[in-house]
């Protein structure tokens, strides 16, 4: 029995009676002043500045409209929403008319009806009459309005000038553009501008020739369009229409759930026909995305039904043998036997597990519980190890909590926005759209990044400063900024004296004022002119509200944790903590990085960041779980690899991670994996890691299970099951079966029960329950007695550790340095259309944007080596070498090259090294000294990888055939 969530009958959104399935015509307005008016005899009271259209809608009076939508500013072009107002001339559009005290509005009378019908008659005189065969049939606002106004004839006939022969554009893989259906309401253009901020669309021509055009009147695919879907969402007709709907027809029901791509955690309405997903529509009630989306969440869901999905459990004794498809029972028993056998032979600590940042909180919780309670050790880690572990360490040390301090909406109150080592337009696109909106409103931008990222090219933004630092010099840069803040008296002394530990502050202040931390001194290290650093520091230091957003460009360094501490120091010193518009904001890469950390995935921390070394903590968990908890922290992922190669670590349970592709120094990882006696992989596809596995447990996608994800703003969002798991089990059920087979009993009947257990054990989750999530829509932790509805902004009055602690941040150069042999620095990152290791997005049409990873390099470096665009280039580091195609790009600075790791055959991580953050072992993906040269064939690793991969696919096919 599928658990359908029907938003039409549920009450969503914190404490408001807004029905997210309705369109109120114009955006909500925030005002302390309330205005009362009379609409059709109904007394209505709304905030000042609200439109008459919205006021009427709130009172349940539906004025016809076409160009108005409540996520766009009023435009006033369709004229259907005309009303009459006592004492005013004419028939003003209610969308552009703000309410006034005592106003008396008439929304229906003979004159208005005639005007609306006659306007609609004009529309239809230039519109095809193919409603019955139109893809929008049943979901067309034009059709609805024609009905609403009672249009019965078109006296102009259909022989006049029209656009019925306008050519269609099918270039985008996900939606079609049929201008013959266009009513030129500009909703798509406005959505592209106001919601997405790309400005790819415009109205070309004027008068009757006005038409929607992408870019310079070119196909959508050739324009700047980023395929976010906002225009498709906005279109009231079938002009911009999802190809899935054109092919399949209108959905028959829908379920609201949470996207499983990046850490923004957008809410979507999964629209279904039977058990088939036909469309993902961004959910207006989603507190993280407010009805916006990106190309991944909106369109790239086809992987869920891809032919490559693993559909049955499989086992084998050796990775040189074909797979054997078996029953769930057999697979689970096989696994349990292997684990117990290995533990008997090699000791309790010879096995471990890796939880997933892509799985739900409940699943992650269960895996670490399995390791701690059933395996009996703390050998649990998560992929956050390789992305945001320094965030956990750095923020916990300084601010007392391992999480970002703000909501995404907070950015709308920022005056200066600092983005360090993050590329939100590609990696967190929906948040980037909101950030860009704020930049268009006049906020200033400071970007510290080796590359000239697209955020710096935001259309219509104000001031923007780029600090193009050399990879590996973050700490030098942040110290120099702090030096300017302190030496130029830009500190918030009041905040520091009230909120921060005085001794730690005194030491930090003394340290940061040292001449070696001055921008002038650091200039030689960072490569950023001292003047630019001073300008940026002053801008941030003098800002009313200064906010810092950062990504993996901060954490994935040998001094990742130091840099996070440096960021927190700077925010505290300037008083930019504890209110809206400010804060320290890690942008999380994957959907549930925050959650997987919260759930106790790390080897030293139980759920809720409670250290295993603390006896009282262990006592509580022991009591709840009925087992003793090992007081010693377990192995981190890199330790597991080393121990596997040493021979002391023999079995590993990996849920929903592809360590063979995503972890650094691939050849080292492969050596570790082949050293294991038993590798258990639970995933939806035969990923790179699975090729080294002995047990394959088919995973379920986010569409196939219930649970929760926690996004980068600590927001717990519900994941709701919309279709049955292809292999019959949700991931948490598999973990539970394994625990039971190992003799540790687990008897949850629904993930909500797992959450109830989490709420008992993690102090920041005590108030969380599925019931409350249904009621509020989402909850930002901490959610407890003090904050029953959650905590949007953290550290408002005090820090969890009482006083904020400044930390010393001595710049120490990475050991990964350039020299004559390796004169260039390679840094890695993401692009918009692909997600992480690409297992999902590579199995969708997103491939058309990025079907291979390329090496970006500056024209100067290319010319020096005789490399032209499209050439095969070999990239060699101290760890290994690989071959990619070259792209010449001015976004790069000379001496720095860049690539992505979305495609396994690229071998980007063959090159990256074992260097890692001093505190957390987060790999130094962002700095690798390399040389590049023109080559003619793939690297030897690539050739081996291809042969090995092909054999493993054959093994899989043989199992299916059997």
């Amino acid at each position, binding site marked *: 029995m599928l658990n359908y969530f029907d938003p039409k009958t549920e009450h969503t959104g914190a404490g408001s009676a807004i029905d997210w399935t309705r369109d109120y015509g114009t955006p909500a307005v925030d005002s302390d002043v309330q205005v009362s008016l009379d609409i059709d005899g109904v007394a209505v009271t709304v905030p000042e500045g609200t439109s008459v259209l919205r006021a009427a809608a709130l009172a349940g009076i539906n004025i016809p409209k076409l160009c108005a939508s409540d996520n766009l500013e*009023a*435009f*006033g*072009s*369709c*004229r259907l929403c*005309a009303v009459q107002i006592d004492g005013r001339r*004419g*028939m003003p*559009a209610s*969308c*552009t*008319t*703000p309410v006034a005290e005592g106003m008396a509005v008439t929304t229906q009378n003979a*004159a208005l009806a*005639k*005007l609306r019908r*006659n*306007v609609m008659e*004009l*529309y239809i*005189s*230039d519109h095809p009459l193919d409603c019955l065969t139109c893809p929008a049939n049943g979901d067309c606002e034009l059709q609805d309005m024609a009905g609403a106004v009672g249009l019965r004839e078109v*006296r*102009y006939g259909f022989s*006049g*000038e029209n656009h019925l022969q306008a050519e269609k554009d099918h270039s985008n893989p996900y939606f079609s553009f049929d201008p013959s259906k266009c*009513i*030129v309401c*500009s909703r798509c253009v406005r959505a592209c501008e106001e919601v997405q901020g790309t400005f790819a669309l*415009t*109205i070309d*021509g*004027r*008068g*009757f*020739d*006005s038409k929607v055009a992408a870019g310079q009147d070119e196909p959508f695919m050739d324009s700047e369009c980023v395929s976010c879907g906002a225009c498709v969402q906005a279109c009231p007709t079938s002009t911009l229409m999802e190809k899935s709907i054109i092919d399949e027809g209108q959905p028959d029901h829908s379920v609201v759930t949470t996207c499983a791509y990046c850490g923004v955690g957008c809410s979507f309405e999964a629209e279904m026909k039977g058990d088939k997903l036909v469309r993902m529509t961004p959910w207006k009630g989603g507190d993280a995305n407010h009805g916006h989306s990106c190309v991944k969440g909106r369109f790239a869901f086809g992987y869920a039904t891809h032919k490559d999905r693993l559909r049955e459990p499989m086992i084998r004794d050796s990775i040189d043998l074909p797979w054997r498809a078996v029953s769930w029972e057999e697979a689970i028993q096989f696994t349990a036997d292997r684990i117990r056998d290995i533990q008997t032979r090699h000791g309790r600590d010879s096995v471990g597990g890796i939880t997933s940042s892509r799985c739900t909180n409940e699943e992650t919780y269960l895996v670490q519980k399995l390791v701690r309670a059933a395996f009996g050790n703390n050998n649990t880690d998560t992929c956050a190890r390789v992305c945001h572990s320094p965030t956990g360490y750095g923020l916990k040390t300084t601010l007392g909590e391992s999480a970002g301090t703000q909501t995404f909406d907070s950015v709308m109150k920022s*005056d200066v926005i600092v983005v360090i080592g993050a590329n939100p337009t590609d990696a967190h696109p929906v948040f980037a759209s909101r950030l860009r909106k704020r930049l268009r*409103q*006049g*906020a200033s931008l400071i970007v510290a990044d080796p590359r000239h990222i697209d955020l710096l090219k935001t259309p219509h933004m*104000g001031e923007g400063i780029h600090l193009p630092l050399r990879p590996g010099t973050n700490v030098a840069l942040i110290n120099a900024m702090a030096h300017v803040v302190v030496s130029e008296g830009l500190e918030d002394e009041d905040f520091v004296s009230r909120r921060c530990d005085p001794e730690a502050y005194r030491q930090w202040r003394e340290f940061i004022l040292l001449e070696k931390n001055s921008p002038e001194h650091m200039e030689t290290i960072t490569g950023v002119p001292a003047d630019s650093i001073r300008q940026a520091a002053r801008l941030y230091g003098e800002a009313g509200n200064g906010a810092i957003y950062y990504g993996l460009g901060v954490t994935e360094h040998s001094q990742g944790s130091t840099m996070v501490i440096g960021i927190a120091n700077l925010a505290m010193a300037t008083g930019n903590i504890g209110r809206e518009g400010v804060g320290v904001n890690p942008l999380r890469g994957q959907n549930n990085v925050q959650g997987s950390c919260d759930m106790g995935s790390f080897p030293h921390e139980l759920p809720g960041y409670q250290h295993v070394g603390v006896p009282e903590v262990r006592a509580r968990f022991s009591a709840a779980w009925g087992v003793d908890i090992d007081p010693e922290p377990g192995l981190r992922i890199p330790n597991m690899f080393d121990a596997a190669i040493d021979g002391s670590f023999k079995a590993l349970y990996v849920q929903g991670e592809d360590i063979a592709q995503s972890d650094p120094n691939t050849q080292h990882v492969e050596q570790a994996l082949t050293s294991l006696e038993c590798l258990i992989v639970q995933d939806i596809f035969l990923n790179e890691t699975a090729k080294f596995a002995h047990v394959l447990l088919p995973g379920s996608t986010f569409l196939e299970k219930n649970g929760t994800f926690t996004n980068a703003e600590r927001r717990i969002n519900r994941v709701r099951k919309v279709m049955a798991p292809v292999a019959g089990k949700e991931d948490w059920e598999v973990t539970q079966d394994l625990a039971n087979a190992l003799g540790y009993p687990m008897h949850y009947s629904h993930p909500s029960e797992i959450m109830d257990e989490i709420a008992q054990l993690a102090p920041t989750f005590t108030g969380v329950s599925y019931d409350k999530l249904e009621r509020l829509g989402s909850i930002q932790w901490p959610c407890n007695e003090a904050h029953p509805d959650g905590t949007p902004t953290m550290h408002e009055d005090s820090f969890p550790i009482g006083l904020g602690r400044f930390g010393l941040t001595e710049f120490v150069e990475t050991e990964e340095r350039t020299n004559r042999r390796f004169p260039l620095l390679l840094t890695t990152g993401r692009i918009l259309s692909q997600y992480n290791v690409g297992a999902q997005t590579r199995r969708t049409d997103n491939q058309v944007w990025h079907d291979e990873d390329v090496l970006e390099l500056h024209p100067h470096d290319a010319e020096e080596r005789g490399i032209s665009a499209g050439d095969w280039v070999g990239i060699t580091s101290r760890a290994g070498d690989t071959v990619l195609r070259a792209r010449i790009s001015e976004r790069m600075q000379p001496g720095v090259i860049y690539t992505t790791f979305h495609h396994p055959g690229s071998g980007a991580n063959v090159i990256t090294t074992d260097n890692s953050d001093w505190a957390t072992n987060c790999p130094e993906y962002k700095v690798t000294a390399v040389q590049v040269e023109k080559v003619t064939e793939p690297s030897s690793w690539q050739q081996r990888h291809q042969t090995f991969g092909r054999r493993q696919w054959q093994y899989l096919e043989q199992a299916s055939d059997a």
Partner: protein
Amino acid sequence: MAEVHTVYVPRDTTACSLGAEAIAQQLGRHLAMHSPDCRLVRNGSRGAFWLEPLLEVETEQGRLAYGPVTPEQLPDLLAAGLLAGTTEHPLYLGPVDDIPWLRRQQRLTFARAGVTDPLSIEDYRTHGGFVGLKKALSMTPQALVDEVKASGLRGRGGAAFPAGIKWQTVLDAPADNPGNPQSGRKFIVCNADEGDSGTFADRLVMEADPYMLIEGMIIAGLAVGADYGFIYLRSEYPLAHQVLQEAITRAEQAGWLGADMQGSGRDFQLEVRLGAGAYICGEETSLLDSLEGKRGMVRAKPPLPALKGAFGQPTVVNNVLTLAAVPWIIDQGGQAYANHGQGRSLGTMPFQLAGNIERGGLVELAFGPTLRELVEDFGGGTRSGRPMQAIQVGGPLGAYLPAAQWDTSLDYEAFAEAGAVLGHGGVVVFDDTVDMAQQARFAMEFCMVESCGKCTPCRIGSVRGVEVIDRIIADDNRAAQLDLLAELCDTMEFGSLCAMGGMTPNPVRSAVEHFPDAFGVTPESSAGAA
């Protein structure tokens, strides 16, 4: 007779298109060779276009006029003693000030037009220039606004909104706008996108007396607290552009514009921005969009530009003529201006006679005389010599007035009562050979071509309007089509976002109502459309 010391040849677009440039060149060569002491001044035009090119020589009897002079006639005129102030040549018109067509006007705004060298600040000051500004620099903003209110000056661009009230709104508007990079600022925007058919008064101001406009804008800035002004100029006026740019540079150099004007501690910067050929950009909100570098699209009001105008800040948007009237008002006092005109139509209006007219040009009169007086006494009837059939006042969106309405007084309220508009003062005359059904069609066609395309009644309605009128002309289901046209006109009037679509029905309805024969209708069957 003594040799004259100064000869005037207008440097004005109309005069130049009639040969003034060639005349100036020939004359320049002649003077260099034969009369090196005689100065050639390129004055502006006096607006008597029917006499252009109008040459003037400075004599002890005052300035003597010759015109219209063609380049071919110049040698003959020179030979006859132009430079001695001959009174014998057939082109001799007598002293300029005695030409009745000019003498009978009431020139307040255009008093200097054609008299001075447009770019000479000295000339400008000699003829009363910058007196208003000098005075304004010592007045409070409220006193300036009050003076404009007292003058009764109304927007001369067409909407006739009281200028003083608009200024008061901008003066009172808070300019604090958190997040907006322009927060704290207010702007003066001069609408110089003079696009109405048959109009040229704005151009004449800019080409003949640019400092007057600059002075008016500075005063407006002082009155509302704006330190920056834009002149949004149509690109079809290259000469006006050139003159304005030069005038701005000279005014800055002379300390009348820019920082610390005349040591007052007050600043005002001025910038010319060019349009790109769209009629709709004369509509103030489209103008603002275009000024900001966007596609010129009509904005919904509210918010009023006075509160949220250029770059989101409080903005005075006034027509050239409105701002040009200001220096005189401040100099002479609001009451002096209000002493002209009648009722609520106070001051003077520069009417522009065009179309099929004998004596075309600019006629500045106090409000009050009838349309007939204007077109007959000043205009002298049609150029073709045939009887007048219709007069369109106020540009392409104005009604076609039949003979029965020609006795309407030139006054905003009287015209409104007649279902017509004075608009920007354009007066276009049609003789009896014109097909008024085609003129109605043209009104719809004009709207079709010039609509910004934002609102449906204008974007689609104008196209259907052309088609419906074509069917009426072709007698294709005529009665039903006339009814449909009447409804379409209502839809456009009540449903359009701005005056473009909202006023297009004016010429259409008036043509149908007053010239039913042209549509093949008998009086009784035309009732529906009227």
